[in-house]
């Protein structure tokens, strides 16, 4: 893509400085909506743009904002900056290098939601970034881009940064809200959804950093421009975090629907050390593994196409696996991660991830037979569809797909293995 819409610093290196951002049209979109548009206008534009949540679920952002119940105040906006999916590092680059576009997106969303206070929930490890964001917010206050009665209108807004304590589960929006309220980070039962009862029981919009960063250009250039990018149902640009066995790992901003082949071989430079590609984890740990067949490599990276081939786009963190890797080893790493991050609230995830880990350890230590692989599969299947939130399902679906698609890698580690 010639022009970067989200990773704009790649075109304008100093855009993290407020005067540079302002001289490049920064905060025009906020000024426009506050002065000329109603909150409902903004929601309509975002809905028409087709913008979908970039945190993983892909839920249409405009629809989500439209769920706020009438007449219930105060309302809150929370930017989910708990970027913790393995292999995902896009939000961090946006916040470090193009922070004002993100903050402007937060402000526009707050205007649409009629919230006077927005929070940025940063994962615990982002403490240095959190401090940077705080100083950016201070600059905005100084320039009267945040504060009371913005642009001479009756809209006031402040943004605050909240640091988590280092838990993967707090990227789940309701666990995030619990954590923000000072409680143990465990997901809430849904419904009610945050739009109805979110932070402190009030209507709350929770959106991912990248989602919000899309908003200023949508306002500036219009919904039609935006949905001309990408596919019919998955519109706009997406930052793909490419990692694993690939020549040039990194973030790549490409239209949704770009094929794996293009991302991995054209932009990423292919597989190093003369190895060949074996599999792809299209969404970090949280979506079923895909064998790197020709069909898969030629599949477009958008929500619909990936579901069709039995996986998910998630947050767009593509981990490339070459033929030196045993998938059982990979599955063990991932299971161990989920076991470590399971919040413990619901039984299948708490007990199931622990059980699966123990079977993997036995497999690793040469103590397991192929019957134990069947058991592992059965345990994983018994978790799927029974958990309180998505974490347990992700953990189990990963193992189920790993075994279904790469059974021979597991058998190779069994003591009676062929």
């Amino acid at each position, binding site marked *: 893509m010639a022009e970067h819409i989200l990773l704009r610093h790649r075109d304008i290196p100093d855009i993290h400085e407020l005067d540079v951002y302002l001289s490049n049209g920064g905060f025009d979109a906020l000024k426009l909506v506050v002065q000329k548009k109603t909150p409902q206008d903004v929601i309509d534009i975002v809905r028409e743009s087709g913008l979908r949540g970039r945190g993983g679920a892909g839920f249409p952002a405009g629809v989500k904002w439209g769920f706020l119940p009438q007449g219930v105040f105060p309302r809150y906006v929370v930017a989910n900056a708990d970027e913790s999916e393995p292999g995902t590092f896009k939000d961090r680059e946006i916040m470090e290098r193009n922070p004002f576009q993100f903050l402007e997106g937060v402000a526009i969303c707050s205007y649409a939601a009629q919230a006077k206070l927005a929070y940025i929930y940063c994962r615990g490890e982002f403490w240095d970034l959190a401090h940077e964001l705080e100083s950016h917010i201070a600059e905005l206050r100084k320039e009267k881009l945040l504060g009371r009665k913005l642009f001479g209108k009756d809209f006031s807004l402040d943004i605050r940064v909240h640091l988590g304590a280092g*838990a993967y*589960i707090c990227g789940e929006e309701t666990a995030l809200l619990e954590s923000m309220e000072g409680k*143990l*980070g*465990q997901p809430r*039962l849904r419904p009610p959804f945050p739009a109805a009862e979110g932070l402190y029981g009030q209507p709350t919009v929770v959106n991912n950093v990248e989602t919000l960063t899309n908003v200023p250009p949508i306002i500036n250039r219009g919904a039609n421009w935006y949905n001309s990018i990408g596919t019919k149902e998955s519109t706009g640009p997406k930052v793909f975090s490419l990692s694993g066995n690939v020549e040039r790992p990194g973030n790549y901003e490409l239209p949704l629907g770009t094929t794996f082949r293009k991302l991995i071989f054209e932009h990423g430079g292919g597989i190093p050390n003369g190895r060949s590609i074996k599999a792809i984890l299209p969404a970090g740990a949280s979506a079923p593994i895909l064998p790197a067949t020709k069909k898969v490599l030629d599949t477009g990276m958008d929500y619909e196409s990936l579901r069709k081939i039995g996986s998910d786009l998630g947050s767009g963190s593509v981990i490339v696996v070459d033929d030196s890797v045993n998938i059982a080893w990979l599955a063990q790493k991932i299971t161990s991660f989920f*076991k*470590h*991050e*399971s*919040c*413990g*609230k*619901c*039984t*299948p995830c*708490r*007990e*199931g*991830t*622990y*059980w699966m880990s*123990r079977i993997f350890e*036995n497999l690793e230590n040469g103590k397991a037979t192929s019957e134990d692989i069947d*058991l592992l599969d*059965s*345990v994983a299947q*018994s*978790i799927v*569809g*029974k*958990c*309180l939130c998505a974490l347990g399902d992700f953990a189990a679906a990963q193992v189920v797909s790993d075994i279904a698609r790469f059974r021979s890698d597991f058998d190779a580690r069994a003591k009676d293995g062929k």
Partner: protein
Amino acid sequence: MSQALVSLTIDGVEVTVPVGTKIVDAAKQAGIEIPVFCYHPKLESVGMCRQCLVEIGRPKIDRSTRKIVRDKNGDPVIEFGPKLETSCTTPVGEGWVVLVNSERAIEGRRQVIELILTSHPLDCPICDKGGECPLQNMTMAHGPGKSRFLYEDKMHLAKHVPLGDLIFLDRERCIQCARCIRFQTEIVDDPVIAFSERGRKLEIVTLSEPGFASYFSGNTTDICPVGALTTADFRFGARPWELNATASICPHCAVGCNTMLNTRREARSQGRVVIKRVMPRQNEAVNEIWLCDKGRFAHHFASSEERLARPVIKLKRRGRLTATTWENAVKFVVEGLQAAHGAVLGIAGGRASNEDLYALHRLMDGLGGRAVLHDQMAGGEFVQQAGVGPGTNLADLGSGDCILVVASDLHEEAPIWWLRVKQAAERGAKLIVANARPTRLDAHATHILRYDYGVAAHMILGMLHEINHQKELDQYASAETKKVAKVVSKANNVVVFYGSEGLDYAASHDLAQNCATLLAASGHVGRANNGLVAVWTHSNTQGAWDMGVHPEPGGLAAALKGQKAAYVVAADPAGDEPLLTSLLEQVDFLIVQGLFLTETALAADVVLPAQSFVERDGTYTNGMRRVQRFFPAIAPNEGMRADWEILSAVAAAMGIDSARPSAAAVMQDIAAKNRDYSEVNYPALSRNASQWPHVGGKDIYFGGTAHPNHQGLGVQLTPRVERQKDISFDWAAPRKIAHKPRYLMVPITKLYDRGTTVVQSQVLGPRLEILRLYVNPEDAERLGMIDEGEVEVQWDGRKQRLRSVIDEHVPSGAVLVPRSLGVPLATAVDVKIRPIAL
């Protein structure tokens, strides 16, 4: 109140339930069991354990027309979701089809229980919960029988973690259902335990100092669906199937919680039958399925080694007590009473049963004497007239209703009432809390009224002024009384709880009278959920009033004047007030009936060993005038007799009355003589009705180990105002408070005092209150007192040295001292305070 209803089918059974009912409850009502762990009918649903998974089919809705799609027969097309759903979190929907016992649902639940068992130890043979364990029952019913999980892969965790002095946690057994945490947070507002860590490391920790500081902690062991939480009292004490269960009533306060005494004959108690634990027995109108920790853990006094076992007499004054036979003892008593020629006073305590009090009253009547209650609080007659009516249940109070609590610290005096009043406030009832100092209930109050100690009755008159506009009441009115009076007069239902903190007999009489007048004037008497409740200090004080045994307005000292004989039943006046000892000794003949060799018993001519409430039957009348029956759980030592039985034998020997054969027969006498009790008899007291939620039985996983009530819900008496239309209420002009004393020492009630029944608890010891004098910071500064310093307090010619604590909650001009900790103080007195130099 009519509620919208929803009809659905559960496993083919048509069920119609109110809107909002959870599927799990709807199924339960239809007799279909859905196993649960984290769900409890008294708690908010969280859907954590995933044990209650079912298949839910919903009528298919056409997206464009928003109408139900019908098949060719006109029946709605039912669509089942891709996933099993938690029936504990899903409210019912019209026309839904729920499958509990489909192959898919059964398989789903089997998988969940298999997962739960992977982390659970196989120590049922040594687990206290074994035999009454939801997880054990569920495993037997639905479990796989053999685990696919390798035993050596089990995670091993600490097994004896004291969360406090009373409750222990076994981390291996915990299945992280959070019932205990949610009970402490949602139900009792003591969020002192919580989860720490995450995943398989998730564990219950206590956040308070001392650990698990809550008066309700024992309830968590009932609702714990495994043996993770056990009590210091019962753990490793017995197996549930060895226990006999006897229905009883808690003797510790005026709430009258229904209990079950679990007993066992055992070698370690020298072959005696002993109480192993006290469990709640469901009575949704009294204690629901809860008990406070005093009720649960202060039972050991009944099995004390110190109990009197044989009658003893003293042949010469100040001589030695000599054991004798009952025959001799009764003869001795008869002679002593005859010699008094009618100058005889009966003195009873509020722990005596109705039958005992009636028998005492009758004996004294026959002798030409009278019986008085050893108590300082008045107003029982107003409770008889304007008490809450039959059908009253605090659980029915909520939005649109009002509760007034005056001169009482309910959290310390009657914890279960505190809990239920707080819950009514949470349901939207207006709660007015009036006291001279802040109490725990203030946190839930919609209106807080402060007054100076002594003028509670005056403040009620201020409220009354707003209702009857009498000129004479002008002087008592204030902006605040005006505001709360409006709340009272507008409310649909009003219940008033009055206590006696800082009030003597006369002042509490005025308070009760004015509260009754306020209720009557605002139209809140004579029907269910309206009326006056006395926060008595003992379990059967109301019963004493009903049996005609009242406190003497001038106190016991006045009542004892000119008496030649005194007969003390279930009271220790000399122990409570040492100054009474010499007065009691001056009586020619002193008879004491009781459990222990008390100070009063030491002064007696004859001491008769009485049976405790666990060894006999009888009835108590609680503060809401519910008459409830307790049953004998333990065979008494043959040397002990029931109080009524002794009194009846004496009356018979003196030709006053024929001996009564049983407590039930005494109750028949009461019913014949006392109009209020005309409907009361033992069969009526034993009647019960079906209650929600269902507890006990095979499916204890649903409600925990609280016992179902098969032994009777008791009878709530009809207040006289409902029967006698000519009863009118008028206010009493309270005494003028002449001067504000420099320092008023006020006795306050603490739940864990050092009274005879509490101090013998084998587990509450570390939690008992310590004697301290609580002083306001400004007063302390004026007096030159320091925190934890020593002071000398003087009153009525006495002196006592006390350790002081500076506490900002103490009103200025008052100093507080907890009762029954060593300062003999029945009611507030003026004191002089002098700090002792270090």
